[in-house]
């Protein structure tokens, strides 16, 4: 990633309140640069998933603005579908479409939304399945896959829309430990391939290894932002130190 790369996502003064009382996010500012891998870490309930989900308006902010490629996101805007196409999302619980095969899961949106021809969509799906190492599962249904395989299909499905950024919402948190590695390996390849990625994760070692920048959040606010070394090795804030000590990694 070049340091002079332009911002692809800009979050300004983002506040999110649930049911009027719980402050999930308080006045958060953040920017994501083109080609950057940004990890968001922090204790559960710190608002990191909410922040990520606000970036493509899966959660609608209570106040504040989100800019994506210089467009202000607005849930009432018809344009929102067009913009979401370009922001792939990978979910903790995979959310594959259970009534569709692996192939159909991947080709559905390119065909419907991008109006891609059937042949081209299938060619693309085959490429992507090879990329995530699941060529042999093309005709399987989600229920026949392991958690790790499901998540890799979900990544392929998101990539099929040729997004400019991929948002990962705790992609390995629902996986059995022995399946975490295969998913992280796919993500690592994407990161090295130059994909812009925002990753909410509990995998500290992974965050340290692949991130260009790490954001530490607590109680709905960003406590500290820096390179992996700055945040993991020489954290400035007491809150960060406590958290890292508790997760017991460094």
């Amino acid at each position: 990633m070049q340091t002079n790369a332009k911002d692809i996502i800009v979050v300004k003064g983002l506040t999110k309140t649930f049911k009027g009382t719980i402050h999930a996010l308080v006045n958060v500012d953040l920017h994501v640069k083109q080609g950057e891998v940004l990890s968001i870490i922090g204790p559960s309930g710190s608002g990191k998933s909410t922040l990520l989900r606000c970036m493509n308006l899966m959660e609608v902010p209570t106040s504040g603005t989100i800019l994506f490629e210089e467009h202000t996101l607005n849930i009432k805007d018809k344009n929102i579908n067009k913009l979401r196409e370009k922001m792939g999302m990978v979910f903790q619980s995979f959310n594959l479409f259970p009534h569709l095969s692996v192939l159909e899961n991947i080709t559905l949106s390119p065909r419907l939304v991008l109006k891609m021809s059937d042949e081209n969509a299938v060619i693309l799906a085959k490429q992507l399945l090879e990329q995530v190492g699941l060529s042999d599962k093309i005709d399987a249904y989600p229920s026949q896959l392991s958690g790790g395989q499901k998540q890799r299909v979900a990544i392929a499905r998101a990539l099929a829309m040729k997004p400019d950024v991929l948002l990962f919402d705790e992609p390995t948190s629902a996986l059995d430990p022995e399946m975490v590695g295969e998913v992280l390996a796919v993500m690592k390849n994407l990161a090295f391939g130059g994909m812009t990625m925002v990753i909410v994760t509990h995998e500290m070692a992974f965050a340290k290894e692949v991130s260009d920048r790490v954001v530490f959040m607590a109680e709905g606010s960003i406590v500290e932002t820096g390179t992996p070394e700055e945040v993991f090795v020489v954290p400035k804030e007491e809150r960060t130190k406590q958290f890292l000590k508790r997760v017991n990694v460094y």
Partner: protein
Amino acid sequence: MMTLMLAFLAVLLGGILAMVPALMRLSKNKFLRVPATAYVEIIRGTPMLVQVLLIYQLLNIPLFLIGGLDMGSFIPGLVALVINSSAYVSEIIRGGILAVDKGQTEAARSLGMSSTMTMKKIILPQAIKNIFPALGNEFVTIIKETSIFMYLGIAELMYQVGILKASSPAVTELYIVAGLMYLVLTYPLSKLMNKIEGRLRHADER
């Protein structure tokens, strides 16, 4: 035979018609939601018998035969059943749609699909699996209900109404009053059920 045919047609037509209030009730728009809710509550909250009598009264089709069936009683009977089953089936459809995991909508929308596309390609195909078993139940119920009012004898009923009509001009009003009284009894119950349903759904959310 007549009963089965009535029940089958009622569930089929009612099922198709039921999509309208089901989707209206799921809408974010109050002007769609409120009338659909009112429709469902009124139909569910008044006895079928009252509805049937009202429809007879309002349609008032003279006796004529098609294939040995008296259309004068068949058509109003069918209309009443369709209306009745549409309200129940719309609740089944709504429940079936709500039972589809929220993550499915999120995944579809994150891929740039519109809400209509998401409903058609992702939610409804999955909701049907939730809807079908309950639809079978509804079919059984409707069969029972038809047999009840068939057993009463529609022709006889019309005769009775004829007598009543002779003594009082306000027959329609009488039926409406009876319906309202039942509604007073059933509406609080159905509100209570809604509350419980809401609690249950909250418990599922993280």
